[in-house]
């Protein structure tokens, strides 16, 4: 039983930026494999390091700026050496760096993203993103269903 941590983040009042949170909220209502934890966050914060450091795999779910609106992608997250991290703007990579700095290692992680069309103030997803949301969730769930190795991560990249 893999311990998987899923973190969906975004601003629910900036239209398509909410897609990560919306996905995480739907995942919370979906039957998931035992050992899966789901977090809904407005932004990534250092206190997530505690949950992440015990995970076997970490999945970040977020909107992406750029790319074709509605396109779903999956990419590995690499922790990087940072010069001056600003805790208001933690990225998946900087959060994994924090975990690595605290524990010496960090679990494999990757980001599943959905390209947004509109990031203006608003509490609704754009039509194209709303239509693509089920595909985003399906991809996350399919990853959870597979035996988890780094090859699995690479195959979804």
């Amino acid at each position, binding site marked *: 039983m893999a311990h998987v941590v899923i973190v969906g983040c975004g601003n629910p009042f900036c239209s398509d930026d909410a897609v990560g949170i919306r996905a995480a909220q739907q995942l919370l209502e979906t039957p998931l494999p035992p050992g899966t934890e789901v977090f809904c966050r*407005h932004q990534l914060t*250092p*206190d997530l*390091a*505690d949950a992440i450091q015990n995970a076997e795999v970490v999945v970040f779910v977020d909107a992406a700026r750029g790319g074709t609106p509605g396109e779903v992608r999956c990419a590995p997250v690499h922790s990087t050496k*940072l*010069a*001056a*991290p600003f*805790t208001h703007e933690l990225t998946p990579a900087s959060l994994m*760096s*924090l975990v690595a*700095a*605290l524990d010496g290692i960090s679990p494999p992680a990757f980001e599943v993203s959905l390209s947004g069309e509109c990031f203006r103030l608003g509490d609704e997803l754009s039509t194209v993103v709303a239509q693509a949301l089920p595909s985003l969730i399906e991809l996350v769930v399919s990853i959870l269903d597979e035996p988890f190795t780094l090859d699995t991560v690479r195959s979804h990249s």
Partner: protein
Amino acid sequence: MQRITIDPVSRIEGHAKITIHLDDSGHVAGTEFHVTQVRGFEKFTEGRPFYEMPGITSRICGICPISHLLASAKACDAIMAVRIPPAAARLRELAHCAQMVQSHALSFFYLSSTDLLLGMDSDPATRNVLGVIAAHPEMARDGIELRKFGLQIIENLAQERVHPSWIVPGGVATALSTAVRDKILTDLPNAKAIADRTIRFFKKAIAGYKEEIEFFGSAPSLYAGLVDRKGNLQFYDGGLRFRSAAGEIVEDQIPADEYANWIGEASLRDSYLKAPYFKTVGFPTGVYRVGPLARINTANQCGTPNADAEFKEFHERFGAPAHSSFLYHYARLVEIIHALEKIESLLSDPHILEKHVRATAGVNSLEGIGMIEAPRGTLIHHYKVNEDGGITWANLIVATGHNNLAMGRSIQQVSEHFIDGTNLKEGMLNRVSAVVRAYDPCLSCSTHALGEIALHVQLLSSNGEVLDEILHPETS
């Protein structure tokens, strides 16, 4: 004349700039503290139904939304003229104590510990949270754990950790379950252990900061904070007390609806932050401080055993009142211990599990004022409504605003002592920022319009000569 600008001031909440003017011999001639953002909640909430105000004003801040929810809800309670159920009062206080823990942990561990652990003169490239993790991993882990403890209580009570909609006019939205209560009690010993070892660490480390203690905003001032009828420190309820620099109680048990008899507000030309002052003394000399240091100075004791032991040691070591703003860090740690003890005592109270948690009523008063102690100091929400409950006027006096004059004075003192304009070093400027950090200002919270915004615009030549200027309004 030369000018040094620190822009932005780092590791604070919100946006600010400091200007330091040097004379021809490189000595500090003057300083200015500019808060460079305006939020305007007092104006754009006009017309909204009063019961929306907790939800709207919680959006003022992402660190201390609970504070605004509580002060706003109390103002709404007054408009409804209700007394909230006992369980609701305890639950609100529980959320408030949890917020104290997480907010103070954020200030100490995330914002200020880099200076305290790595040194004020350490390399700016590593004077950040990763530098702390590399040099003091256990301290970094403790900071993350302690903040998480406070945030999880809020999330377990309110289902959201930022901008929750659980604190409402008349009480709270849902009751506490035994499962949540027991989970908090299970996690509490670890949080208390972290608080205890952090304050022990700090009490040793403070020996290395004698110069900062002497020159970091150490000018005496009035102090203000809420206390109960026995003079115990109060976060959620109580009357406002002012204590003089010499330690005398100047005014005591001021109820929320009389704050305006004692606190005036002035606009400053070089900042969007208002400047509250003690009316009896007047502006600008009626400087008073709020927040952890002021609360520890104002109260007779905390009212919980471990915190009282720390309270006693604090004053034996630094006087009663203690004046150095550097000691805000120490006072913050005492308050974390007090908040954790309060959490334990609230959860042990059987009333807290009662199911009746909300009183309901319509508009029964056309004015309501809510006053609490936010992590950064006294917070006041004052609303006037029409008979339909629409907001006609709102005034927010936010903790950091109370400290505006004191912060300005502290910046002047630190600049005059530490800055040598003939041999400027980065550590000198970091100390100027560090004195602001000691107050743990929440500048996003504190900037709201007071009628017209005062403005002073100068056109300067390349050598600093004033070519033209506009003052608005024309008289101060």
